[in-house]
């Protein structure tokens, strides 16, 4: 994946930049969070000895011991429910669901308790945990291994939904998620795990920890005092590429698609702005409105099936808030409304550059 043109939270450009994978950034974020705060613990299926099937937790059990990073019996409701209990009693659990569809047995715990406990106790019992979910396709996975399930969680009040699209964000947003006083469902685009970008994790760590302590507590943004809403930096969308003619709105795995499409469009003289939402809940309406009001046209690009999806929500919000700026209907480029298809056919299902460009062509440029 290409590094975004605009990365406001990138590390000090003077620092030595090494090619770093998304997976390494997540791993380092967990490791740093555990080092910084003894109540952070990591558990799930195969996350201990094996280091996770994607190796995101590699080395954590060795470094922090089996009390801090451990395998559980194979039961996702158990994982989510035990995490909720540990969070009630002073811990900050970070749990891994092995694949998107395998988180479903935990949905009752997530919807009925993790999302609601803070509210039903009038704020007296907060559930500061992170549920990490590798999601999406593009990795040749067989059935049940490639769902994009963010809409289920995004529709559930009480959860925060983060999904990073860059290596730096993989680090910074996971740190923020761990420090958040609210439960965060952290969606990791699995097709990005082995993508590399030149990133100095050490510098990011300093940046994050200075920022977090500046703002006097967990969830603090990098800029001291710059977070009156308490959303943290992770709660803000980022313009990944500036443009003037059309806004490509995306998150997670499709930010790269949007950037590539913008690149292509530029060759045809169309200047596309790419917005990386980063957080689906809370939602950065200000950033969304700003880009659409600037360009007057928008395409939402997301992998999940489109019906009743987050992409649908974004379209709805754009037309609710920017109606009079729109020169053309907002278009969606999403997965089809079918079960995720097999490795041999996934390329026909996933939004790709051509499909974004097709949508772009239909934006009534003649008007």
């Amino acid at each position: 994946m290409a590094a975004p043109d605009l990365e406001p939270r990138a590390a000090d450009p003077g620092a030595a930049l090494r090619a770093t994978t998304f997976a390494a950034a997540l791993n380092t974020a967990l490791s740093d969070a555990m080092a910084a705060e003894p109540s952070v613990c990591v558990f799930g299926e195969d996350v201990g000895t094996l280091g996770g099937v994607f190796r995101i937790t590699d080395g954590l059990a060795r470094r922090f011991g089996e009390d801090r990073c451990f395998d559980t019996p194979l039961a996702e409701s158990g994982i989510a429910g035990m995490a909720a209990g540990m969070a009630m009693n002073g811990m900050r659990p970070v749990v891994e669901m092995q694949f998107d569809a395998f988180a479903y047995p935990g949905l009752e715990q997530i919807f009925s308790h993790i999302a609601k406990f803070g509210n039903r106790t009038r704020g007296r019992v907060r559930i500061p945990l992170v549920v990490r979910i590798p999601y999406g396709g593009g990795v040749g996975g067989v059935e049940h291994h490639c769902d994009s399930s963010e809409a289920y969680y995004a529709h559930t009040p009480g959860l925060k939904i983060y999904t990073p699209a860059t290596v730096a964000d993989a680090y910074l947003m996971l740190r923020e998620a761990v420090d958040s006083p609210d439960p965060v469902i952290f969606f990791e685009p699995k097709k990005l795990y082995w993508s590399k970008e030149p990133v100095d994790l050490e510098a990011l760590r300093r940046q994050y920890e200075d920022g977090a302590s500046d703002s006097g507590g967990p969830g603090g943004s990098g800029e001291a005092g710059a977070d009156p809403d308490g959303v943290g930096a992770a709660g803000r969308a980022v313009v990944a590429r500036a443009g003037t003619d059309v806004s490509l709105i995306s998150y997670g795995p499709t930010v790269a698609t949007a950037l590539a499409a913008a690149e292509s469009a530029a060759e045809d003289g169309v200047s596309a702005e790419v917005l990386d939402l980063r957080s689906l809940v809370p939602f950065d309406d200000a950033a969304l409105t700003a880009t659409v009001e600037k360009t007057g046209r928008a395409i939402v690009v997301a992998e999940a099936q489109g019906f009743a999806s987050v992409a649908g929500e974004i379209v709805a919000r754009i037309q609710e808030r920017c109606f009079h700026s729109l020169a053309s209907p907002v278009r969606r480029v999403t997965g089809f409304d079918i079960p995720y298809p097999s490795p041999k056919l996934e390329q026909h299902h996933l939004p790709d550059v051509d499909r974004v460009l097709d949508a772009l062509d239909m934006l009534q440029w003649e008007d």
Partner: protein
Amino acid sequence: MDEEITADDGRRPAVVPEEPRQSDEPHEPLAHEKAEQAARIEQTSRSFGITPEQYMLPAAQQIRMLSPDGSLIPEEEQGTSAGHEYPVPEDEALLAAYEALVVGRRINDQNYALVRQGRLAVYPSSHGQEACQVGAALALGADDWMFPTYRDSVAIMTRGVDPVEVMVSFRGDWHCGFDPIAHRVSAPSTPLTTQLLHAVGVAHAAKLRGEDTVVLAMCGDGATSEGDFHEALNFAAVFEVPVVFFVQNNGYAISVPLSHQSAAPSLAHKAIGYGMAGEQVDGNDMVAVLATLRRAVSLARERSMPLLLEATTYRMQAHTNADDDTRYRDAHEVELWRRHDPLTRVQTFLSSRGVLDDDAASRISDRAEEVAASLRTAMTADPPIDPLEIFDHVYAAPTAQLREQRAQLADELARGQED
């Protein structure tokens, strides 16, 4: 007792690795490594001179100390046996339990009345199950935790939470009323069985910090059918955490009788499938309930391991005020159970023993009336609820979206007031 136990009922003792496994000296093939909990169980059963299976299976009959007429059952008929031994609690503890029982019954009846007066939206009564309610609260130490259900209000109050706070949610407010952290009592769970996993998590967190907190996790007979029951017991055994799973088997899940819920010899027989001990107790026998819960709590604490206790009891009233129990059980059955009322049984026992004299009895009944009266007064007042607060606790700090929505409602309310 340190010799090797040979299973005297002809079954094998659990295979326990004697030493931590060495990578150059692998264990016997054709068997798989067993959990440490198995070693703990082995050691525990050995200390009682019985096999692990004998330890984990419930005793031959449920533990019962008071006969239905309130007399003390001879020790050899109480159902106890080696490894299943339950000392009768001291008089003082029993008197305290009796007091809580009387207050609990009074609260149940008061709430029933409040529902009929429309002061409470709903109340799932534990009338008939108060011995379990009281036992649950009194068996715990101050630092222990309790995870109750919607039916366990009396247990929560016995634990020391203000009855008025407990009733807040049943009155129709949007939150649980009391501070779970301060009382170490979780907000009662409505989604069945889910709370057992939270209990395991609380115990696990405590264990990781080196605290010896015991967690009492409560559920009903119906709730044992949910997947979360299985996952919670399994997690507790694998992580060796001191959780006492306390099942109030009142014979029904709303209308569904136990026979449609389970085909097991008893619910306590499920314990061995997780590698923990199970026991059955007469849940209408205050003495036996307290005795078994106390020992379960102390075994759990001392050995850092979970146990399962099934109390056989009966819900004398309908599931809630919305339920019509005549549709699924006959009056005669209810009548039969009335003869085994937990309150009268222990009352007879304590009176005959001279522990409960007239003075004590009237002091206790006065206290019950006091509690009921203050509950009545509080519920008759209708404290204003600020509608705007529904946005304030969804997250630690409201999101921009919620601030927008809050502003909309505030505007509507303001306009409404102008009308």
